[in-house]
């Protein structure tokens, strides 16, 4: 740019210098011409005077002679003769050799000797013609008499000599027509000088016109050059501006310069207007622009951060991490009271001009999509980790058992949903609802725990915590259910993701074992098979291991399709509950068992058999410590189920019935498997729902047994199942 500038000015400077030179030349020429004209005019005038003088001399000579002859005064013609002679002779000498003489106007003039050939020749001829006359006139020039009257003078010798000299001079002048030749020569000289002067004037005028012409041409050249250059540079500027405009119009980032007063520069990209949803951003204060759409605290930090760039001490490559506007959430007012949230990313860079900081170049991007993607990625990562954990959990579960669990859980959650939807008012109704939900969740948790699905157990446990928390409040409102629905939703989502995972695993199997496609399809079509014994074995092993016990489970009639479809769910739930309670409370630790003369391995037997009358019996029996009637009595009194007096009066059978009450637990700690006081009431509820009966029998230190009788299934129901 600066090279271009200096080039432009060099041409202009050269052109102007030439213009001045031409003009100065013309001016000097003018002076010279004026001077030459003055000199020529003097010479021409002097030459003209010589011509006149040549005649006047002859005339004065004749008049003097005539005055002397006629007796008149001779003084006037003689003086005129003398003056004419002196002027003519001095001028002629000056023409010949140069010198200062009196001019026509009486002033002294300095003239140079004639130099051109023609002038010199005419001068030489004039001098030759003049010389005899000049000599002949000498006596008259020297004549000076006291006698004024010529009548007296002629009588004297002086007068006689003068007469003779006059006569001689007149003779010389008239001899060979000398007087006329002298006139002609002086005339020729005058004419020649006039001609020379005119010729010189013409030549000088041509030179002058040429000079002016050149100056004018130069002027137009300058003008043309200047206009052409201006056009060229204008075009270049126009192209540069067009390119800048194109960039600013096209670039998708918000681009602008920021001054130290935080003002946006006059040029900015079109995208900036879209990003900030407003026009006329030039000159706007950036901080004010962000006020209202960015939190005030962020704005204050941002102002300080930007000021660092203007401070000069900070290395701009080492402060990017601190940029509070690197990814900033902004809220734009939308339609009505709606706000639209976007994410913007600002980057700052110093702009140096001649090593001095002039502005900051600011780049703004709408990074909403990227920010959303990042968040999505985080969620997805968390989900992947959870799924991986889940995968590890479900890999050791039989697919059929798992499918059965998933169906059962979804059923339970569906049930919870309908419980929630039922219209209800009043604290008691709310509490009843919470109880029902709790039992459903507890059942899901129990089964998940049996399968080792720890993620599901954790989520279900959270829900139980929440329900317990709400139940403990003095009063309950409909709003208390809101957090519950959210957590239930999370659990449902989780169970669905387990299902997706299972589906993927099935796909995986299909890819690796195409020959089994048909079989898998059959499996998928078939109702979930209820080989719940595997599930129960797992559960028993897990709980026993956790509690440092050894238990052997023996199941009869729980494999395959022995259990009618409509009883499968409840029987499984009851079995889980029996095992949890039995392993936790019933079976003793290995050492205690040795002391009690039992084998180290506890035994649990479960049986599901059809009775002859069409009814079914589901029985549970363990060889543990039996029910501790004293502990049950104390717990019942402590928990306020009955008074101390009442318990004294109760028989063992009635006391045993207390374990089916909601909230009854002899355990002092809450774990996934026992302690909440839920469990046996789940069994009671299930039995009630199915119109069955449950009986308990126990012997201290020997066994505990539950027998559940379930009614026969009506034919149509069975068909449906």
């Amino acid at each position, binding site marked *: 740019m600066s090279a271009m500038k200096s080039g432009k000015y060099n041409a202009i400077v050269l052109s102007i210098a030439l213009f001045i030179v031409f003009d100065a030349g013309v001016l000097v020429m003018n002076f010279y011409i004026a001077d030459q004209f003055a000199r020529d005019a003097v010479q021409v005038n002097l030459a003209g005077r010589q011509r006149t003088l040549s005649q006047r001399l002859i005339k004065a000579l004749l008049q003097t002679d005539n005055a002397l002859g006629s007796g008149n005064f001779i003084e006037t013609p003689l003086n005129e003769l003398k003056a004419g002679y002196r002027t003519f002779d001095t001028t002629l000498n000056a023409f010949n050799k140069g010198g200062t003489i009196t001019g026509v106007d009486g002033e002294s003039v300095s003239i140079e000797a004639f130099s051109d050939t023609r002038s010199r020749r005419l001068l030489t001829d004039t001098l030759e013609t003049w010389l005899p006359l000049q000599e002949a006139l000498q006596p008259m020039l020297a004549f000076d008499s006291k006698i004024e009257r010529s009548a007296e003078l002629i009588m004297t010798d002086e007068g006689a000599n003068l007469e003779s000299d006059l006569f001689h001079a007149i003779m010389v002048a008239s001899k060979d027509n000398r007087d006329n030749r002298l006139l002609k020569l002086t005339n020729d000289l005058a004419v020649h000088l006039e001609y020379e002067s005119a010729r010189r004037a013409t030549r000088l005028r041509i030179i002058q016109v040429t000079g002016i012409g050149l100056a004018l041409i130069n002027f137009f050249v300058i003008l043309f050059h200047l206009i052409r250059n201006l056009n060229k540079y204008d075009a270049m500027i126009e192209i540069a501006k067009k390119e800048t405009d194109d960039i600013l119009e096209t670039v998708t980032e918000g681009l602008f310069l920021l001054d130290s007063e935080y003002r946006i520069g006059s040029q900015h990209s079109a995208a900036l207007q879209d990003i900030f949803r407003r026009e006329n951003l030039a000159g706007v204060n950036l901080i004010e622009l962000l006020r209202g759409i960015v939190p005030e605290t962020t704005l204050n930090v941002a102002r300080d*951060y930007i*000021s660092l760039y203007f401070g000069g001490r*900070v290395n701009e490559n080492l402060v990017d991490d601190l940029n509070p506007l690197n990814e900033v959430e902004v809220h734009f007012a939308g339609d009505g009271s709606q706000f639209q949230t976007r994410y913007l990313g600002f980057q700052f860079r110093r702009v140096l001009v001649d090593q001095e900081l002039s502005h900051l170049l600011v780049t703004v991007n709408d990074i909403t999509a990227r920010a959303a993607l990042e968040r999505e990625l985080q969620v997805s990562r968390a989900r992947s980790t959870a799924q991986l954990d889940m995968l590890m959990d479900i890999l050791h579960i039989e697919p059929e058992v798992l499918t059965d669990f998933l169906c059962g859980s979804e059923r339970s959650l569906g049930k919870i949903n309908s419980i929630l939807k039922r219209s209800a008012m009043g604290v008691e109704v709310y509490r009843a609802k919470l109880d029902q939900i709790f039992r459903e969740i507890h059942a899901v948790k129990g089964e998940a725990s049996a399968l080792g699905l720890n993620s599901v157990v954790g989520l279900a446990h959270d829900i139980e915590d929440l329900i317990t928390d709400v139940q403990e409040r003095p009063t309950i409102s409909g709003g208390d259910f809101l957090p519950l629905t959210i957590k239930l939703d999370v659990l449902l989502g989780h169970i669905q993701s387990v299902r997706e995972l299972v589906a993927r695993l099935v796909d995986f199997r299909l890819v690796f074992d195409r020959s089994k496609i048909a079989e898998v399809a059959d499996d998928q079509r078939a109702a979930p098979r209820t080989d719940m014994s595997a599930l129960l074995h797992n559960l028993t092993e897990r709980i026993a291991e956790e509690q440092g016990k050894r238990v052997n489970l023996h199941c009869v009639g729980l494999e395959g399709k022995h259990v009618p479809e409509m009883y499968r769910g409840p029987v499984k739930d009851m079995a889980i509950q029996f095992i949890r309670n039995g392993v936790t409370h019933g079976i003793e630790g290995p050492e205690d068992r040795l002391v009690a003369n039992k084998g180290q391995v506890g035994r649990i037997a479960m049986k599901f058999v059809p009775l002859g009358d069409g009814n079914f019996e589901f029985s549970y029996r363990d060889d543990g410590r039996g029910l501790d009637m004293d502990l049950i009595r104390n717990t019942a009194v402590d928990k306020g189920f009955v008074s101390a007096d009442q318990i004294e009066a109760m028989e063992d059978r009635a006391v045993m019935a207390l374990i089916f009450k909601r909230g009854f637990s002899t355990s002092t700690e809450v774990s996934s498997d026992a302690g909440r006081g839920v469990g046996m009431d789940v069994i009671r509820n299930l039995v009630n729902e199915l119109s069955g009966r449950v009986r308990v029998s126990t012997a201290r230190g020997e066994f505990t047994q539950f027998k559940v009788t379930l009614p026969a299934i009506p034919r149509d129901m069975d068909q449906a199942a």
Partner: protein
Amino acid sequence: MKLMIVDDSNIIRKKIERSTEIEGLEVVATAGNGVEALEQFPKVRPDIVTMDLTMPEMGGIECVEKMVEMDPNVVILVISALSDKATAIEALKKGANGFLCKPFSEQELNRAFRELLGEATNG
């Protein structure tokens, strides 16, 4: 070139000391808080200082301010966690020259040194 390390964590001090691999950069002093650092500062006259912000007795912000008062040509690299950007920015306003986020790698530390020393040599 003389380096001074100011950090209340012995582990971080050691890490900086061990990680520095700029030729000609030599650790001349370490300090566990601002007071110690300011005592040593006029004696050792370091060219570059790494500065923690949260330290007992005297924090990094005050220390930066006083060091710059004593020697306006000193180059200070603030090394701190990102949790409080405002504090770090305040330290930079007081005259620190750069910021490095904890936790940092060897490469990041040496890159920061190169940035700052390059600037100091050029300027």
